[in-house]
Structures are given as C-alpha cells and as structure tokens.
C-alpha cells in the first residue's frame, strides 16, 4: 500500500517537475516572443488584446486569478502597466512574480529608452518617467530582449537549458535575417515626413528613419481636439507630410479627418501581434507594418 502511495506521490511530483512554465504576458508582443523562445515549455496567458489601449487596462478578476499561478511575468514595464499591475501583483499574492524576483521580467530594462523626459509635469500630458514605453515598434529591440528573456527562462527552468538555448539561437538568427530584409524593404521610408495620432512610434521612426512632424493628440494621452486638428492641418500646409499613422486600437476618426483635408493616406499599423489579420506572429507584425507603410507612400 505504502509503495503504491509512494509511486503515486512520485508521479504527481514528477508531473509538476515537467509541467510547462506558466507565463503571464502583459501584451501580445511579449506573449509571441515567449512563444518563440519557450515553445512547448510554456503555457502563456496574454492579459491584454491588440485592440485594447494598453494604457487603459483594468485589474479584472481574471487577471488576478491568472497571475496567482504564474511563474513568470513578461511585461513592457516603464510604467506602461502602472494603472493595473500594482493591483494584480498585490492581489495575486504570488511572490514568484513580484518586482525584483526572477519571475518579474520588464522588457524596457533591456533597450535604450527614447523620449526620457527632462521634466515631469502632468501639464505635459501622459509622460512616462522612464521614457516612451512603446518599445515594440523597433524590431532591433527584440534582440537584447530575447537574449535576456531566454536567460530568464533558463534561470527559472534550468532542466531545459539546452532547449531554450537552441530556440534562442534559432530565433536570433532568423530575426537578424528578417531585420536585414525589413530594412532593405523599408529603404524608401527614410526621411519620409509623417503625422501620428499618439506618440506611439518613436522607436519605429528611430529605426526606419521616418520623420515625425506632428501628433493629433494635443498632449500624450489627451483626446485629439478639433482646435488642435485645425492647427496640425495648418502646419501641414507649411510642412507637408506623406501619411498619418495610428495604431490599430486607436479611433480612426482623427486620422481620417486629417487624411481627407490634407490629402494624405491614413495608415493603420498593427502596433502589436494580432492588431491586423496579417500580424499573426512577430514576423508577421513587422512584415505587415512595413507593407502598410510602403503602401502609404503610393
């Protein structure tokens, strides 16, 4: 009897040892990256959808329940999730994923941040002290993040070190090749003047050389106002732009308004995995982003 019980116990325990890592990904791009790096070794829950404004997420009961059993949290950081993550972390009572522990991964820590404000004043709108958090629009940023995330997976699940190393090496190689391809495709975009709905694309601009001349939001996070749109339209008479960009989750009306009056195309970008039907994974995200930008040129 004891032997049977012992065997059962061993089975249960060993079941746990081989169980995949439970990963709580804050945004779809980090779910996709974790999928690339961890393959079958991770159960990934994605907390937010591609059509949600990532600034306006709520600490829903489901998020707290999912965070309770997570071994790894993969988020942007840089205060993007500050509106809901503190509640989720506190209520989940899960010490594995609290800030400072190995299970708490913030992608923004591994890239050079842009638009770090020299002064913090809410009169400037929705500015983040650590810099602009929309780091996922520059494909190059995924290289150091993937490297750090892969090391974190190994730290949490050393039994599968070889598996993670092999997947990371494969991703790194494919991604570098893809970046070279995208940069070649995007060559005509260099120096192209654009208008954006929200300051969501500084990393994309930095990468592809797009030149941002105006935003439709009067201040980051504030609604585009009629007065401000008129002003942008006036400025465009002096300094014409080639297109107006917005993320898939943003309301199309302000860009359509500018598009009609300034006679420039309104281009919707997926912004993250799932933002458009073509952006099915990280590769699709950038393939589609560049196709849409190039289409906007014509």
């Amino acid at each position: 009897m004891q032997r049977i019980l012992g065997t059962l116990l061993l089975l249960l325990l060993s079941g746990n040892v081989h169980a995949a890592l439970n990963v709580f990904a804050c945004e779809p791009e980090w779910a996709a990256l974790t999928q690339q790096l961890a393959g079958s070794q991770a159960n990934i829950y994605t907390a937010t959808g591609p059509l949600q404004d990532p600034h306006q997420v709520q600490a829903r009961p489901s998020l707290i329940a999912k965070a309770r059993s997570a071994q790894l949290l993969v988020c942007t950081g840089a205060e993007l999730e500050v509106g809901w993550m503190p509640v989720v972390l506190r209520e989940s009572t899960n010490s594995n994923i609290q800030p400072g522990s190995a299970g708490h991964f913030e992608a923004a820590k591994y890239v050079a941040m842009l638009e770090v404000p020299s002064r913090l004043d809410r009169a400037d709108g929705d500015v983040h002290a650590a810099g602009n958090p929309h780091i996922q629009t520059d494909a190059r940023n995924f290289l150091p993040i993937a490297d750090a995330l892969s090391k974190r997976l190994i730290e949490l699940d050393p039994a599968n070190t070889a598996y993670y190393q092999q997947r990371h090496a494969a991703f790194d190689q494919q991604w570098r090749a893809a970046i070279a391809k995208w940069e070649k495709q995007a060559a005509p975009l260099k120096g192209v003047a654009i208008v954006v709905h929200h300051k969501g694309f500084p990393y994309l601009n930095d990468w592809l050389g797009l030149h941002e001349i105006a935003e439709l939001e009067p201040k980051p996070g504030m609604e585009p106002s009629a007065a401000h749109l008129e002003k942008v339209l006036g400025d465009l008479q002096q300094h014409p732009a080639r297109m107006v960009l917005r993320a898939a989750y943003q309301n199309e009306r302000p860009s359509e308004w500018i598009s009609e009056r300034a006679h420039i195309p309104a281009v919707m970008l997926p912004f993250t995995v799932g933002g458009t039907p073509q952006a099915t994974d990280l590769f699709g995200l950038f393939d589609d982003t560049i196709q849409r930008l190039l289409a906007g040129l014509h």
Partner: protein
Amino acid sequence: MFKKICSNTAFAVLLGHSLGAFAHDTSSDNAFNPALWLILSGTYGNMQRDPAIPATGFAMSPNPAQTQGFSLGESELGVAADIDPEFRGFATFSILSASISVENAFVQTSTLGNGLNLKFGRFFSSLGYLNEQHAHAWDFVDQPLVYNTMWNSQLIEDGMQLKWLAPTDMFVEVGGEVGRGFGYPGTDTPRNGSGATVLFAHIGDDIGIEQSWRAGISAHQTRQTNAQSTAVPDLLNTPGGVSDSFNGNSNTAGLDFIWKYAPNGNFRERYVKVQSEYFRRRQDGMLTYATQPGGANIADRYIDTQSGWYVQSVYQFMPTWRTGLRYDRLDPGVATVGALNAGNVISNYAYTPSRITWMADYNASEFSRIRLQLVRDNSRQGLPDNQLFLQYIMSMGAHGAHQY
C-alpha cells in the same frame, strides 16, 4: 475612471531631490520612495428639503446626507509604500471641512504566498462591491441609499482581514474579517475579543475579451450595545428630544454583481458597466424608548428585517464623457415590537423609500473629473426632493491603480 497613473513620480522626484535618492523603476507604484497623492474634491449641492431628515423607516440608521451649498467633499491625502520585502503600508486621510480623519491605515503582507493575503489596521471592509472603493472612484456624488442606511456610507473597520485566492483559472476569493465593530452598525464598545465579523466570497471572470464580471456574497455580524438614535421621532407627532437605544444582534447578508463591457475590450473609447447590490439586515434585541427627555424609559423586544438594493449603469460614450443612471430602493420592513412599546414605536411604515439619480461627467484626462448630478429623491414619505449637485475630483501625485 482614473485608471492609470503614468508618472507616479512627480512627487517621487521632489522627494528624490530632497533625499538624494531617486529610483526610476518599475510597474509598481513604489519607486523607492513612498507614493503620495492628494485628491482635491468639492461639491455644490442644492436640495429643496432638509438633508438631515432620514429615509422613512430608517430613523435608527445614520444619515450621511450631502451638504447643502459649497463643501469640500471627500478630499483625500494618501501615502503608500512597501515597508520591507514582507510588508506594505497604506494610509489615507480624509480632509473634512474642519478636520482631518484617518480613513485607512493598514499594513498588508506581501509574502505569505499560497494565495493568502493578511491585512491589519483600519481599512474599508471587503463586503459588497462598492464598500472598498474610495469616494473619488464613485460613479455618483453619493453612495446608494442602501449603503447610507446600512453602512453609514461605508463600513470602516479596525481589525484584521485574511483573504485566500484559490489557485484556479477563474477568480475565486474568500475571506473573513474580525474587528472592533468600529463602523456602524457596530457600536465601538470597549471589550476584549472582536466586536464584529465579516465573511465574504467573490468570483469573477471574463467572457471573451470584451466582457468581464464579478459576483459576491457577504455576511456581517455584530452585537449592538446601547446603540443610541437621538432625535428619532419614531411616532409621528412625538415631541423632539426623545431617543431610542437598541441592544441586540445585527446580522446582514448581501449580494453584489458587476458586469463591464467594452467593444474589443478597449476601455479608452467606449464602455458600459452595470452593477447591483442587495443587503438585508435583521436586528433582534431590546429597544429602550425614552418617552420624553428625562422621562421613564420603556424597554421591550424589537425585531426588524430591513433591506435595500440599487442598480446602476454607467456608459462612457466617448473618451472624455460618461453618463450614468441609478435606481435605489429601501424596504423598512415590518417590525415586531413588544407590547410595552407598541404605542410608542411605529412597526409598519407602509412606505418604500426610493430614489432615481442621473449623472454626466467630463474627464479631460484620467486625473480630472467634473460632474453634474440630478436626483429625484422619494426616500422620505411626503417629502419628495429634487436635488442638483456639481462636483470636481482632481488627483495629484502618485495615485495608485484602482481595483476592478
């Protein structure tokens, strides 16, 4: 909904300069130094009737009525930080017109693990849905009638709370509180042991990406000792100045439900939320009735079961504008009054207080809100009241994330 605070660091920067330490970190609202925030809030209220008159049949309950004219409302100063890796501290002070009072001051554990969460100090009880929300997060200027009469607006407790979050995909949380019995209906009687207990359970989940919900049940128990109700003319035409005093058990059970919907789950553009709560209280004990000031006291059995509910909906129809509608209803119940007091105390009011409230608010950003509220108040028999409120709620500093 002041959902997200992007720069929790405006104050941290100030502190950082003075303390020579400043960490730029993380998704937590901690950033090395304590998070500090100040909610500036104020109300203008216009009522046709004296707000001090309680709802019919609830004269023994408190009446946290709104102030006529201009008032500071629920301005609030808050501080929160991790104390060390094991404990987190949280305190809010409400700034009333002439004083500052300690609204919350509690310590919470961070590392118990296994889904356990222990809190001790002064806190808003986790019963119901609205009880834990701070005034600046309310969708209307005031609380529902059922909260006003059953919890004196909000149940505050000095005590301990233990919660357990089940390791399930669906949100399942159960918890209990023991406390001093500091907040109404507790009578804050000095005694060893606890003066009140609360039990609660919550479940919740998503339906696709667009809908989410939470439902809960709760129970509250306390023994009321010499619970005074002054200026309670229970019998119409009783001269003023008499008082009731109740000694007995108070048991309350509640149900709460909230459902939220946003197209594509995108709360930025549009959303709807619908919520409803129901509470039922049985008071069983002795009522001591003073027939006139200094006169003979008459004590006899008193049992009453009272209940109340509300249903409300808020619709954000564009990013900066929201509107909401709320319906309140109370049932004073039919009291069993002992023979000695049968002539002094009304047992059946045969009136159900109700109220209908409409609001619209403008939110330039998630940190500022200006609200108009119109009310048709039929909570007092024969005294219908039309009310108008104007309110501002502005939040400064590192004001942490809100609960669901």
